[in-house]
């Protein structure tokens, strides 16, 4: 029986328009990035990557220290820190805060961390209205979908689809011009900003030495979310910490460039604490929710800890030949693309979706563009080995396990290897079409051959190199 994930992947691949749209959109992001990291423009790009990696490594290796420092700083500035072991604790805090403040409406800026814990859906169960204010994320909310891409959540939606979603959900006339669509969303969202009781943001960085929450965006919606409502809550994973404000000089240079090819995003906000006496604006209350949700478990693994260096730029998605074919919704968790392939098994468990780390040609394009130099292919290899180990004694891979044992046995015996090759060539050589393969019983594990031939031809088999080499040597000698 074909597993569901394979069926879904096939469906996406069969949709030529979708495949072309993903390929084109990610291709544009690739081009934009290439231009702004070129040596003529940013000669110290490679050095910046190395620095960024080292800062992340240092911070995570001393995370206890920086977390405490951050808490002290946030508190000293009149804010409050909330520690959430799991997503539900973050949700409960917000629900309780909303009850205490008699809040009905929450505006929210884009945040993968809140997607990770399903914050919106879970707060809706508490009878709260929660509105996404990033345009792409708003479209996704109206469409009841999950983000398709870490940076561009509605990457897969055409303007005609957006027009249809807006008409259906907002009751407006069909409008397929993107600028006009933005205007429609803006009109709705401005009212929400004004009426909202609480603003929820994520955080791109948390600065330990100043207790600042750093938000990076292009639409200005995060700035409004964090300044218009009376209460502000930032929700972030504990890995978002960096030691000093000056470290932003490294990360801000890399983030915009890697994500969208911008030297800097349009807005960069550093928020620390609530409004102080004399401040013209700002929230009355300021909370930072620090989320673990499995991060300390990943942190404990010396080799795979680097997965937490990720700054969510999405460059690995844009450069991944697999993501560029299958898009974001074929990945089982909110994080898609190469980074999703290494995060999901570590957060969700190795055997939840054991196929995922195998769905890669290990081409390494992701690691080449990662601004914090996460060795994604290496981690994929490690995860594959761990999954094979975790599945020992299970039926799941019985044939494959047997095949590799047999294969290794043969590969240590050159005579046997040669014989096997000769026999295979003789069988294949008779008829390299598919007909005879379909007649063989499935138990013979001819799956790989059939899978190969489902997409492409095999070279016609013949004499092996070693046989020809012997002939040649006998002639020469």
């Amino acid at each position: 029986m074909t597993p569901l994930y394979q069926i879904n992947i096939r469906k996406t691949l069969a949709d030529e328009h979708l495949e072309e749209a993903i390929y084109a959109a990610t291709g544009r992001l690739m081009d934009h990035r290439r231009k702004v990291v070129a040596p003529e423009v940013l000669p110290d790009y490679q050095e910046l990557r190395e620095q960024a990696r080292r800062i992340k490594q240092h911070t995570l290796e001393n995370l206890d220290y920086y977390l405490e420092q951050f808490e002290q700083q946030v508190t000293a500035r009149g804010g409050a820190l909330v520690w959430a072991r799991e997503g539900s604790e973050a949700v409960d805090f917000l629900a309780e805060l909303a009850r205490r403040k008699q809040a009905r409406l929450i505006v929210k800026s884009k945040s993968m961390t809140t997607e990770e814990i399903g914050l919106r859906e879970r707060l809706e169960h508490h009878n709260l209205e929660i509105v996404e204010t990033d345009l792409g994320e708003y479209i996704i909310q109206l469409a009841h979908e999950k983000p398709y891409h870490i940076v561009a959540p509605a990457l897969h939606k055409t303007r005609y689809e957006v027009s249809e979603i807006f008409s259906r959900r907002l009751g407006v006339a069909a409008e397929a011009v993107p600028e006009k669509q933005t205007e429609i969303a803006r009109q709705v969202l401005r009212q929400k900003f004004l009426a909202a009781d609480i603003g929820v943001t994520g955080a791109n960085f948390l600065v330990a030495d100043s207790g600042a929450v750093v938000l990076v965006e292009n639409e200005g919606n995060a700035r409004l979310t964090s300044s218009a409502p009376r209460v502000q809550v930032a929700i972030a994973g504990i890995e978002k910490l960096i030691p000093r404000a000056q470290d932003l000089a490294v990360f801000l240079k890399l983030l915009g460039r890697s994500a969208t090819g911008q030297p800097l995003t349009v807005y960069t906000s550093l928020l620390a604490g609530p409004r102080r006496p004399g401040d013209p604006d700002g929230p009355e209350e300021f909370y930072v929710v620090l989320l673990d949700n499995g991060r300390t478990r990943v942190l404990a693994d010396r080799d795979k800890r680097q997965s937490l260096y990720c700054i969510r730029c999405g460059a690995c998605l844009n450069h991944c030949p697999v993501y560029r074919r299958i898009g974001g919704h074929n990945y089982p968790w909110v994080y898609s693309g190469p980074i999703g392939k290494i995060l999901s098994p570590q957060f969700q468990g190795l055997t939840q979706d054991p196929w995922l780390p195998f769905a890669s040609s290990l081409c390494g394009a992701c690691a080449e563009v990662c601004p914090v130099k996460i060795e994604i292919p290496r981690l994929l290899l490690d995860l594959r080995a761990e999954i094979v180990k975790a599945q020992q004694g299970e039926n799941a891979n019985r044939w494959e396990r047997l095949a590799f044992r047999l294969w290794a046995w043969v590969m240590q015996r050159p005579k046997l290897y040669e014989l096997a090759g000769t026999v295979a060539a003789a069988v294949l050589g008779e008829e390299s079409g598919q007909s005879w393969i379909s007649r063989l019983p499935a138990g013979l594990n001819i799956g790989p051959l059939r899978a190969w031939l489902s997409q492409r031809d095999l070279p016609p088999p013949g004499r092996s190199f070693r046989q020809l080499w012997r002939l040649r040597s006998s002639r020469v000698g």
Partner: protein
Amino acid sequence: MAARVSLFVTCIVDQFFPRIGLATAELLERLGYRVEFPEGQTCCGQPAFNTGYREQARQVARHFLEVFQAAEHIVSPSASCVSMVKNHYPELFNKEPEWQQRARSLAGRIWELSQFLTEVARLEDVGARLEGVAAYHDGCHALRELGVREAPRRLLARVRGLKLREMPGAEECCGFGGTFSVKFPEISGAMARRKIQALCESGVEYVISADASCLMQIQGALSRAALPVRTLHLAEVLASR
């Protein structure tokens, strides 16, 4: 006395593309090397390693290390297999210091063909001739694990009669990926089709690569789509005259 070179043809070349192995040998002999083919060789173990079967990969790797123990230079027409030996063997044996030592010692003696020609033999013009227009496809492991980008292009630029043309997305994976190609045949196939589309757009007669496995994938897709572009290994081009 001529320097000795041990040929590691790889299992794919041995079984499917013997002509690539023969071309490699002929080329090296023509350049004055004494070429040996250690008969005990089979596979480098990459299929098991990439599929998560570390113990099986170690067994095959130990066999490889024994077969090539005495080699002075090992040259191979497959960058991916060279990277397996050079980059992954030492890590594979991180709990077996003795084998790790042997792996490290061998790592400095194994070369992908274009690397060997440009860095050891220090040659760019090997006296080859081939009429036609060709694109070079960067194998991912050649490019990103061995850092081989310019060497094959420099060698090809000196081939008489050959016009090199960069194809769009030359650095994009062809979709082979070892067992990935059969575990996810549809994705792999879609990647191959994008590659052959790029080849057709650039209007070349040949596609050349330093990896037989990429060529198996690209040739398979070209043949399925009945397209006239021919696949050639770098060794075949450099051996032609």
